[in-house]
């Protein structure tokens, strides 16, 4: 792990079928330990930019390097290895409704064939980290939205990822719960995990004063080290 920069994007353009241009010539570096907000209106390319990091998609032109590896040139069988180093959370949590909180988190370790011993050790740690150790046996439907997002975060961090990619993780949450989730993401960042988060939430971005990358029509129009949601003249 000798890199200082975890994500490098050089001249990245992404065109979807139907000639829909989601990103245009994007250049972006994200360093180890950064906390980056990706902001911009709907359709500006935020989700596309995030999915390039976990190789949910590949660039039409340009290069995306994650932890020193060009994601577009990864062999198909190497993609899972990349994803094991990246935690991903979404607005809709993506939990398995027929599994308990514990099993949802353990799932991320089971699919990478972790040993039962490792699972027994890591899952309670991740649940403690997100403050849900006491709800390990609950089912997702018994939890509030914020708690469900915490389970998703626990699942994303249980494998000690280098980067946590969050696509509007507070989009479905009330303001108080949103702040709780942001505090949790800050804790995770302080422990050394790089966090890249797409959001529409002005309050969160303005309160936290982290790096802000603003996208408009697929292009980066602002990249501020300690920015606010809107440009401050």
């Amino acid at each position, binding site marked *: 792990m000798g890199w200082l920069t975890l994500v490098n994007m050089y001249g990245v353009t992404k065109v979807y079928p139907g000639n829909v241009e989601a990103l245009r010539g994007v250049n972006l570096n994200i360093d180890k330990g950064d906390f980056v907000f990706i902001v911009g209106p709907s359709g500006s390319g935020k989700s596309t930019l995030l999915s390039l990091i976990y190789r949910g998609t590949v660039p039409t032109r340009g290069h995306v390097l994650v932890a020193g590896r060009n994601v577009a040139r990864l062999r198909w069988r190497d993609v899972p290895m*990349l*994803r094991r180093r990246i935690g991903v959370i979404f607005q809709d949590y*993506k939990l*398995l409704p027929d599994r308990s909180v514990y099993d949802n988190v353990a799932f991320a370790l089971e*699919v*990478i064939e972790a040993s*039962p011993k490792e699972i027994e050790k890591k899952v309670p740690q991740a649940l403690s980290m997100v403050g849900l150790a006491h709800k390990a046996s609950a089912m997702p439907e018994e939890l509030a939205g914020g708690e469900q997002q915490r389970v998703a975060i626990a699942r994303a961090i249980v494998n000690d990822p280098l980067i946590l990619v969050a696509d509007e993780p507070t989009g479905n949450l009330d303001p108080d719960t949103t702040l709780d989730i942001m505090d949790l993401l800050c804790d995770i960042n302080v422990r050394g995990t790089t966090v890249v988060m797409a959001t529409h939430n002005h309050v969160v971005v303005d309160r936290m004063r982290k790096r802000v990358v603003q996208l408009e029509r697929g292009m980066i129009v602002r990249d501020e080290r300690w920015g606010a949601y809107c440009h401050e003249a």
Partner: protein
Amino acid sequence: MKLRTVKSLSGQAFRSLKKTPSVTSIIVVMACMLVLSSFMLVAVNLTRIGNEFQAGVQIRAFLSPDMPPDAVDRTHAAIQAIPGVASVKYVGKDEALQRLGKQLGENNFFLGDLPRNPLPESFDISLLRAADADRIAAAVLELDEVSDVRYAPKLVDRLVGVLRIFWVVTGIIAVFVLVGASLIVSNTIKLTVFARRKEIEIMKLVGATDAFILFPFVLEGIIIGLLGAGAAAVIVGAGYQGLAKWISSVAPFMPIVTDSGHLGLAIVIMLCFGAAVGLVGSNISTKRYLKV
């Protein structure tokens, strides 16, 4: 993949079999396999009949009347050396006359009045394959000592043609069975895959390999294929043995295949086909969902 993982994923496959309407697929696979195996067994029997017939196909080569006596052995050796010749039997003039006498039966009285034996010396040539009759006859005719050859080329051609057509039809049916039954199995697995698409998406996002995701679906497909083929094998096994016994009793001259080796081979082919149907079917249904 670790043994512990294989166990856990196999459990998933068996649980899924209980939930999806797999009985319908098993019945369809069984029906397809019954058609395929029936054709296979008919083809095997026709081939046996054909082989016996081919073994009986002979070329008769007549020798020139003015041939020196030492040429018989030389010609015998030359014919025997032609590829595809099983055996060569010399028929002298006297033996040829005796044969004719037998063929004529009561009407052979005039043979004794002949001033001399008019029949030529000949060779009866047995073939390994009837399909080679034309080529061998032409090669024999090229020998200086041979004046003429006789055989039944049209009958041989027809027999070989019918056998070839039957095996081609069996092959085409095999392809249809593979494609058709695979699509049926694929549709059943699709239901499972669709029900678990969210789980598959999460698996992909947290770094599961395609092999890990595919394993339970492929196993489910193979089990459906094997159960269908196995059921068909039981029916064919029991049914064929009964039928073969009955044919042997009412028409003992028919060379029906009754040895367990052929039947066993047919069953093994059916099971392999069943497994292949499951493998292909499950791959068709899951491929789309793996592209996350």
